[in-house]
C-alpha cells in the first residue's frame, strides 16, 4: 500500500495501530523488566540469607548461647534450688526447647531459609536476636527506623553537598580548562584513592586530639542538651568531622569526572555553533552542555539517593556514629541475621525500583531513547 493511495480513514487506523503497538511494547517491556528485577532481588536476598546463616553454623552458636543462658538463669534462681537434680535438668531442657522454638531453631535451616526469604520479600522483617533499639524494641523495623535518621543526616548532607558542589565547580572548570585551578583539581584527583574513614583518622588527630575543638565521635554530647538549639548545635559539632571526611574523600575525583564528562560535550560542534551565534555562556551551559548529560547526572543522583540507605559502614564505625552502617557492622559481629537480611532487602528493593524507574526517566529526558527497544 503506497502513501499516495491512502484514504483518511486508513491513515487514522495506521496511527491507531502505531499507538497500540507502542503501548503493547511499553507494557510488555514493563512486565518483563519487573519480572527480571524481581527474580534478581529474590536471588540476591536468598544468597544473603544463606551467607548470613553461615550454612547453619549460626544455629550452633545460637543454640549454645541459649543453653548457657537458660542453664544459668535456672541455676541462679532461688526458687528452683530446692528441686532435685533430675527435675531441674528436665526443666532446663524444657525451657531450652521452648526458647529454641521461639527463635525458630526447631525447624531445619533449609526450610527456615525459605521462610526468611518469604518474610523478607513481604517486608516482614521480624525480630532481632541480640540488638535492641534505644527505646528497647527488638523489632528489626523499629531498629532500622531508629538508626535511619542519623545516617540520612550524615550521608544526606555530605552527599548532596558533594553532588551539587562538584557539578557547579566542574562546570566552571570545563569553561576554563587548562587554567591553574583546573590543573590543581586534576593534580588532586588521585586523593580519592584514600577512603573516607582514613581521612577521618587524620581529622580526629588534628581537630579532636590536637586542637581539642571538635569531639572524637558520637552524635551528641553526653548527656544530650535539653534545649533544642543546643541539641542541634551539638549534633552539628559532631557531624562536622565525619561529614568532612566523606566529602574530602570523593570531592576531587568527582569534580574531575564531571569536568571530563562536560568537556566531551563542550567540544561538540553544536556547542561551537552556539558560541559562534554569540549565546551567553550561561545559556550554553544550561541548554547545550547540561541537557545532553542529564541522563547520566540523573543516574548519579539516583544512585546517590539509594546509597544513602547503606550508610557509610567504616566511617560510621570510626566515628561511632549511631547510623545504619554501624548497626550493620554490630549486627554481623553479634550474628544478628534478621538485621543483616532486613538491611539488605530494603537496599535491594530500593535499587531495583530505582533501576526500573530510571529506564522511563531516560526516555523522558532523552528523546533518542525508546522504551523497550
Amino acid at each position: 500500500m503506497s502513501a499516495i493511495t491512502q484514504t483518511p480513514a486508513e491513515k487514522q487506523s495506521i496511527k491507531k495501530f502505531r499507538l497500540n503497538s507502542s503501548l503493547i511494547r511499553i507494557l510488555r517491556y514493563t512486565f518483563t523488566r519487573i519480572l527480571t528485577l524481581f527474580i534478581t532481588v529474590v536471588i540476591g536476598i536468598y544468597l544473603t540469607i544463606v551467607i548470613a546463616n553461615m550454612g547453619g553454623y549460626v544455629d550452633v552458636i545460637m543454640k549454645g548461647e541459649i543453653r548457657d543462658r537458660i542453664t544459668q538463669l535456672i541455676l541462679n534462681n532461688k526458687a528452683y534450688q530446692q528441686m532435685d537434680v533430675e527435675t531441674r535438668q528436665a526443666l532446663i531442657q524444657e525451657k531450652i526447647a521452648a526458647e529454641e522454638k521461639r527463635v525458630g531453631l526447631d525447624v531445619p535451616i533449609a526450610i527456615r531459609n525459605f521462610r526468611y526469604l518469604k518474610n523478607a520479600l513481604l517486608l516482614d522483617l521480624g525480630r532481632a536476636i541480640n540488638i535492641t533499639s534505644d527505646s528497647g524494641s527488638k523489632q528489626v523495623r523499629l531498629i532500622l527506623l531508629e538508626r535511619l535518621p542519623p545516617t540520612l543526616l550524615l550521608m544526606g548532607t555530605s552527599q548532596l553537598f558533594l553532588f551539587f558542589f562538584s557539578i557547579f565547580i566542574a562546570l566552571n572548570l570545563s569553561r576554563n580548562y587548562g587554567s591553574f585551578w583546573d590543573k590543581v583539581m586534576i593534580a588532586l584527583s588521585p586523593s580519592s584513592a584514600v577512603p573516607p574513614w582514613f581521612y577521618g583518622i587524620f581529622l580526629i588527630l588534628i581537630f579532636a586530639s590536637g586542637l581539642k575543638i571538635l569531639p572524637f565521635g558520637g552524635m551528641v554530647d553526653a548527656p544530650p542538651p535539653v534545649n533544642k538549639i543546643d541539641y542541634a548545635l551539638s549534633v552539628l559539632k559532631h557531624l562536622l568531622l565525619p561529614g568532612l571526611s566523606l566529602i574530602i574523600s570523593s570531592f576531587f575525583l568527582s569534580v574531575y569526572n564531571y569536568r571530563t564528562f562536560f568537556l566531551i560535550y563542550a567540544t561538540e560542534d553544536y556547542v561551537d555553533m552556539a558560541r559562534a551565534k554569540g549565546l551567553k555562556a550561561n545559556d550554553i551551559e544550561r541548554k547545550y552542555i547540561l541537557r545532553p548529560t542529564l541522563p547520566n547526572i540523573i543516574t548519579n543522583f539516583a544512585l546517590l539517593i539509594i546509597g544513602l540507605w547503606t550508610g557509610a559502614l567504616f566511617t560510621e564505625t570510626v566515628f561511632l556514629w549511631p547510623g545504619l552502617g554501624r548497626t550493620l557492622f554490630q549486627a554481623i559481629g553479634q550474628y544478628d541475621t534478621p538485621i543483616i537480611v532486613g538491611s539488605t532487602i530494603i537496599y535491594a528493593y530500593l535499587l531495583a525500583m530505582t533501576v526500573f524507574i530510571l529506564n522511563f526517566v531516560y526516555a523522558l529526558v532523552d528523546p533518542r531513547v525508546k522504551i523497550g527497544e
Partner: protein
Amino acid sequence: MLNNFRSSFQKILMYPSAIAGVLVILFLVGVSVYTVITIPYSKAINMWRGGEEVWYQNPKFASPAWINYFSKQKYAESFAVSTTEAEIQTTTTSNDRGVSTIEMIYEFDYLADIYPQELILYFKSSFKEKQPFISIELITPDERTIRIANFALTGKDVTYRFSQDEKLRTKLRTKDLIPALFSLPETEQPLKGTYKLIITGSTFETDSTIDAEFVFHGQVFGWAGTDHARRDLMLPLLWGVPVALAFGLLAAIGTSVLTMIIAAVGTWYGGWVDELIQRITEINLVLPFFALLIMIGTFYSRSIVVILGATIILSIFTGGILGYRAVFLQVKQSMYIEAAKAYGASNMRIIFKYLIPRMIPLLIPGLVQSVPAFVFLEASLAVIGLGDPVLPTWGKIIQDASANGALYKGYYYWVLEPASLLIVTGLAFAILGFALDRIFNPKLREA
C-alpha cells in the same frame, strides 16, 4: 603491539608525577624483597605473636627515636646491654678458697629531659648450694654514689626492677624512684652526664657464674617506636609492605583479568551466556559488598587468602564488566574479526588472540588505578578487627592503636606511621594509573 607499548612507556616520561609513582612503587617492591629475605615469614609471625619473652628489652608506647631531632625536650633512648655480649665490662678476681668477686661496670650517657620508664637488671647465675651475692651502685655525674641494692641471687633467674624497690624508695625519700636517680637531690631538673652502674657479684663456689643484662627502658625506641605489647613497630611496618602490595596487586590483576575474560567470552558467544553474565551482574549489584566481606570475615575465615578470593569474586561482576562488554560489542564487528572467522579461527583463538589484546590499553590503567582501593580495603577490614589473625599488617597497627586509645593519649606516631605508608602506597598507584589513563586513552588528554 610491542612498539605501541614502547611508545606508551616513553610517554610516561612526560609525566613527572607518573615517574614519582613508578619510583615509589619500585622502592616499595625493593623493601618487600628485603623484608621477606631478612625477616622470613615464620620468624616474622613468631616475633609478632611473641609476648614479653621476645620483647622484654623494649619499653611500652615508646615514640620513634628520631622525634628527638624535632622536639625541644629530649627523650631518653632505650638500650639493652649484657655481659654475654661483652657490652658490660667484667673483671673477675678469685682467691684459692673458691670465692670470686665479679665486678661489672657499665658507663652510659644520660642527656635527656624526660626520664626513662624503667631500669631493669636480669641476672642469670649458676651455683650448686651457695647463692651468689649482688650489690648494685650507681655513680652519678657529680660523683655521688647511690647504693641501690644488696641481695642474694635466690634462683637461676632473678629480675631486679629499679622502680619497684621499696627499700630504695624509703632511703631516697621519694615517690618516683627513676626521676630521683637521674636528678640532683631536692630538684626536679634532670642531671645530664655520664652515669656509671657498678654491679659487684660474689660467688662462693668454684664453678659458680653470674651473667647480667641491663635493660634501660627509655621513652623513645628505634626507627618506628613500640606498641602496647613492647613490640617494635618496624616489624609490622616492614611486613606490611609485601602484604599490602601482594593483596592490592593480586586483587587488582585477578579482578581485571577475570572480568575482561568473562566479558569477552560473553560477548563473543552471545545468547544465553551473555544473558547469564548480565543477570549475575545485576544480582551482584543488589548484594551489599562490604557487608558480605565482613560476614565472610566474621563467620568463615579471616585468613587473607580467603578474603582475597572473596574480594575478587565479588568484584568481577560489577559495572566494569558492562563497560568491557560495550567495547567488545564494537570490536566484535571489526573487519579483522571477520577475517579471522573467514580463515576458520577457533572461538578460543579469536577471544584470546584477537579480542582481549585489543583491550589491553583499557585494562592497564584501570588495573593500576584499582590497586589503592584494594590496599585500603585490606586495611579497612583490619581496622574493624577483621585482619588476618597472624600476619603483621599496617591495618593491624592502626587497629591496635585505636583499640589502645592512641589518638586520645597522644601516641600519634602509632597511627601516623602506618597511615603515611598506606597513603604513599595508595597515591603512588593512583598517580601512575591516572597518567597511564591519559596515555592509553588520548581522548581524555585532549579534553
